[in-house]
């Protein structure tokens, strides 16, 4: 049986700020569906992506209540991707950069997310088939 593929992604964008976050999750979703092992090193604003403190809201401009708006919450998408990866025989290992967590007060994260360091990112990269850095921009 062929070894399971392992990919590492480094992300930097905070939720709701840029299309990069969505594209990154799309890539992870594809890998999850294939049962790959996926590592994510969340740097800077990306440590906010798995925050359970995100809450849905209504949308008065469109006349939608909370349920009708069904506003995306990245932490739910990430939890779903963790489940999807596992269902297909892989694992999504998400590390939040610890200093980035501290300075942003982003110390809450969904289950399955752990705190780490740049050394973890290097270990991820060394142990993966490939690594893609999706950096933020000014």
């Amino acid at each position, binding site marked *: 049986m062929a070894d399971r593929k392992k*990919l590492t992604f480094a992300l930097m964008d905070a939720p709701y700020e840029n*299309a*990069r976050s969505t*594209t990154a999750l799309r*890539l992870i979703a594809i890998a999850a569906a294939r049962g790959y092992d996926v590592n994510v090193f969340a740097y800077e604003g990306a440590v906010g992506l798995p925050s359970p403190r995100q809450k849905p809201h209504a949308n008065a401009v469109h006349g939608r209540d909370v349920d009708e708006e069904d506003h995306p919450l990245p932490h739910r998408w990430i939890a779903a991707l963790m489940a999807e990866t596992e269902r297909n025989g892989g694992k999504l290992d998400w590390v939040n950069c610890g200093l980035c967590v501290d300075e942003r007060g982003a110390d809450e994260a969904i289950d399955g997310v752990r705190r780490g360091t740049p050394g973890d990112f290097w270990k991820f990269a060394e142990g993966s088939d*490939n690594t893609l850095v999706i950096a933020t921009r000014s």
Partner: protein
Amino acid sequence: MAKYLLIESRDPFDSNDVATYYDLATDLVAQGNEVTLFLVQNGVLPARPGKRSDELARVAGAGVEVLADEFSLRERGIAATRLAEGVSAAPLEVVVDQLADGRKAMWH
């Protein structure tokens, strides 16, 4: 010879650096490498035939495989059947395929 995946998420109307990235793609091919330039997000905007799409045609003519994310095209109402010369629509799965194959990959 190595294989490269260059992902371009920005559009040349917004960032001068995009032209530099296109040049990197052609330079890599000139050095004997195999290169895919995968356009995503606003990076697909010049794939609609227009003022800046000649640059993509030049890149494709130099031997770079130029692909545009199907979802990003649809999101922007750009018909996949009417793209600039040398550009083909492709699913994002291609990026994961090439990552899994070990291509040297950069996101811009």
